[in-house]
């Protein structure tokens, strides 16, 4: 089987969530099929500037073809069009212009996909919201498999994506919440799909004691791993932790691992270690009592999975449907909706270490059952085998032509954020 992985950016140093997921899956699928990556020359997702050389490359043994981006993103134009599409009644032409402005606009990549459609059995497109996924999947609708990596954000309400989400051959979701969201937005419940997360490379040797010694940390502590940013809910984390620490006699410490773009509160119970190596990250999680995930938007949260893989419980923000759903399904994490719940939950971890350990053990079992690489690989391979067996009749909605020039300019489409409001909310209970 020959597979093309089409992703907006690709490289060993590119650390975006979807891109990292694409690379891990690609490297694992290369053991089962002949895999080639088709991507842009960009490294920066804000500008899509051509930074890597076009043409062939090899990354960790996987062949890669890079195509230049026609023009870097104009942030101002993109912001203006985003405001139109997300908040105002708009037209199909507005949506097309928005998609074009979002990028990475690489007509050469689309042209290559169209002219080499017979070379590959399937094209796996990552991230539904980008230019290459929409135009690429339109070019090869009968061989397109989509990994949407959709989150609860207005882009899912853009009408242009409805035929994309419902017109591909198969869809691979990261979580059941993502599947419910996409089903609600596009009504694509009938097409073959799987919910397959991402495995994680857990080192064989974990040394929590080494971490404590290296950073001079004593006593029980909670850990946060990731960018320290308002978008990740860290300002709320600091506020809630302040309330918790003042109300407890022997509060847990808070250890932060990651680059910060927020000022860290001046509190002796908060330790900021900055960016740490993978080794320190895993040792740190293993040394901690609980991992805190304060983010509002997560499509999977690999760090939470890694904590479970190491037998550690998680305290997650309940406002993020995915995290709450993961905690409920795994039975290995608590969640908070407000400061009181945060304080009480942390206090629970501090007071009942045995039960906290039991939560962690359940998390480890959950990870092994659903997120170990052999499990994930098998799910991908099974889906592709199924799609190979089942031939599709007709082109599907993706092959339908766009409206005519005049119709395309009629401002009749509702704002994307209105559409988003109508989509299912809350954690998913079904697998």
């Amino acid at each position, binding site marked *: 089987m020959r597979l093309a992985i089409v992703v907006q950016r690709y490289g060993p140093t590119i650390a975006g969530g979807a891109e990292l997921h694409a690379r891990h899956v690609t490297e694992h699928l290369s053991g089962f099929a002949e895999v080639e990556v088709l991507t842009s020359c960009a490294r920066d997702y804000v500008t899509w500037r051509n930074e890597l050389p076009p043409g062939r490359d090899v990354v960790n043994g996987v062949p890669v073809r890079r195509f230049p981006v026609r023009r870097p993103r104009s942030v101002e134009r993109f912001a203006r069009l985003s405001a139109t599409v997300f908040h105002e009644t708009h037209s199909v032409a507005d949506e097309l212009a928005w998609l074009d402005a979002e990028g990475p606009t690489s007509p050469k990549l689309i042209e290559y996909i169209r002219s080499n459609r017979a070379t590959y059995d399937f094209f796996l497109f990552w991230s539904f919201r980008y230019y290459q996924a929409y135009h690429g999947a339109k070019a090869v609708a009968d061989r397109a498999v989509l990994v949407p990596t959709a989150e609860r954000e207005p882009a899912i309400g853009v009408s242009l994506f409805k035929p994309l989400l419902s017109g591909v051959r198969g869809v691979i979701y990261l979580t059941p919440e993502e599947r419910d969201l996409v089903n609600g937005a596009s009504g694509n419940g009938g097409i073959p799909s799987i919910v397959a997360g991402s495995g994680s490379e857990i080192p064989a040797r974990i040394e929590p004691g080494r971490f404590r010694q290296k950073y001079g940390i004593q006593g029980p502590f909670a850990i946060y791993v990731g960018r320290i940013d308002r978008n990740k809910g860290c300002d709320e984390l600091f506020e809630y932790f302040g309330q918790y620490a003042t109300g407890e006699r022997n509060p847990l410490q808070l250890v932060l691992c990651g680059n910060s773009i927020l000022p860290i509160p001046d509190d002796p119970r908060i330790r900021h270690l900055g960016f740490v190596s993978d080794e320190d990250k895993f040792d740190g999680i293993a040394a901690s009592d609980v991992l805190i995930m304060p983010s509002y938007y997560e499509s999977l949260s690999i760090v939470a999975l890694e904590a479970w893989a190491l037998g550690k419980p998680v305290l997650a923000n309940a406002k993020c449907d995915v995290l709450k759903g993961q*905690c409920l399904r795994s039975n290995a994490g*608590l969640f908070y909706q407000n400061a*009181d719940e945060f304080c009480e939950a942390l206090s629970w971890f501090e007071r009942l270490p045995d*039960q906290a350990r*039991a939560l962690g053990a359940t998390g480890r079992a959950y990870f092994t*059952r659903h997120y170990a690489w052999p499990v994930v690989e098998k799910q991908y391979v099974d889906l592709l085998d199924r799609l190979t067996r089942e031939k599709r009749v007709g082109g599907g909605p993706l092959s339908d032509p766009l409206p005519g020039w005049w119709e395309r300019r009629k401002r009749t489409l509702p704002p994307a954020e209105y559409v988003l409001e109508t989509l299912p909310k809350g954690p998913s209970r*079904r*697998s």
Partner: protein
Amino acid sequence: MADFNIRSDSVNVEQIMQQIRARIREKRGVDYTEQQIRELAAANFERFLDPQGARPGLLERFRQDGTSPIENYSFEDTTLFESHRAPLRWIRRLLRPILKLFFNPNPLAHVLHMQAGINARHAHYTELSYELLHNLVLETTRLGVEVKNLKMRVESMSSRFDFAERRGRAIESLVHRRSESAVEEPPARGRTNRAQAAPAQPPPGQTAATGQPAAVRDTDQGGSAEARRRRRRRRGRRSGAGRVPGEGSQPVPADGADAGDDGSQPGTDDRTPETGGGRDGPADKPAGTDTPTPSDREGQ
């Protein structure tokens, strides 16, 4: 995916979360979820929009009008002359200079163009005002709940304060009574330890008031002291029948209040009518202190 519901016998996240919320409720009093606050806000919103109940569908209409996109048109300077038929469009363009001899269509086009813009802005403001109103009502409801909670906390604090004040008064009166009784009575057998440990007690052998030796005071008071000793001896013989030897000399905690609070030795105090429960009573449980102690509340 396969079965997602791995359940451990010992832990259940949903149960733990229920316990956590129950603890919060105990601490905070009333606790509303986000959904409940929204429902309350919706009720407030309805009342706010329709105070007389004259128009039952008003809320729904406002919601629809406020959130549904309004159809608008675009009007440019060429709109008046447009047509989907190309020849007609061409003829109109050709005759436009002649038309302009009769009247100037430009101000008309300009005004209609502006009107389209005003319509668009108005639609936008309507959406904003709906959202603003909605958020204000939501926030007001949230504040109302918060005020209710704070009121409850103030009440709780006030009752705790009352309790502490009563307790303080009881302890003060205890100390006061002890010092008074120490002036009245000399240290006696079976009460020696208590007398020595009492905070306002003079050194053994001296009265609190005068500092004179106890023997001197006994001699001064003469027959009354002798009569008291006789009464005590008689009472000792009567109650001694059912009592364990030496019980009368059981050491008693120095502070009656503490003895009552920890309750470690109930019933072992040698409480004669002069020295017993009547004195320690207020410290054990001050009058009117049926209210649970702060520690009791925490434990609830």
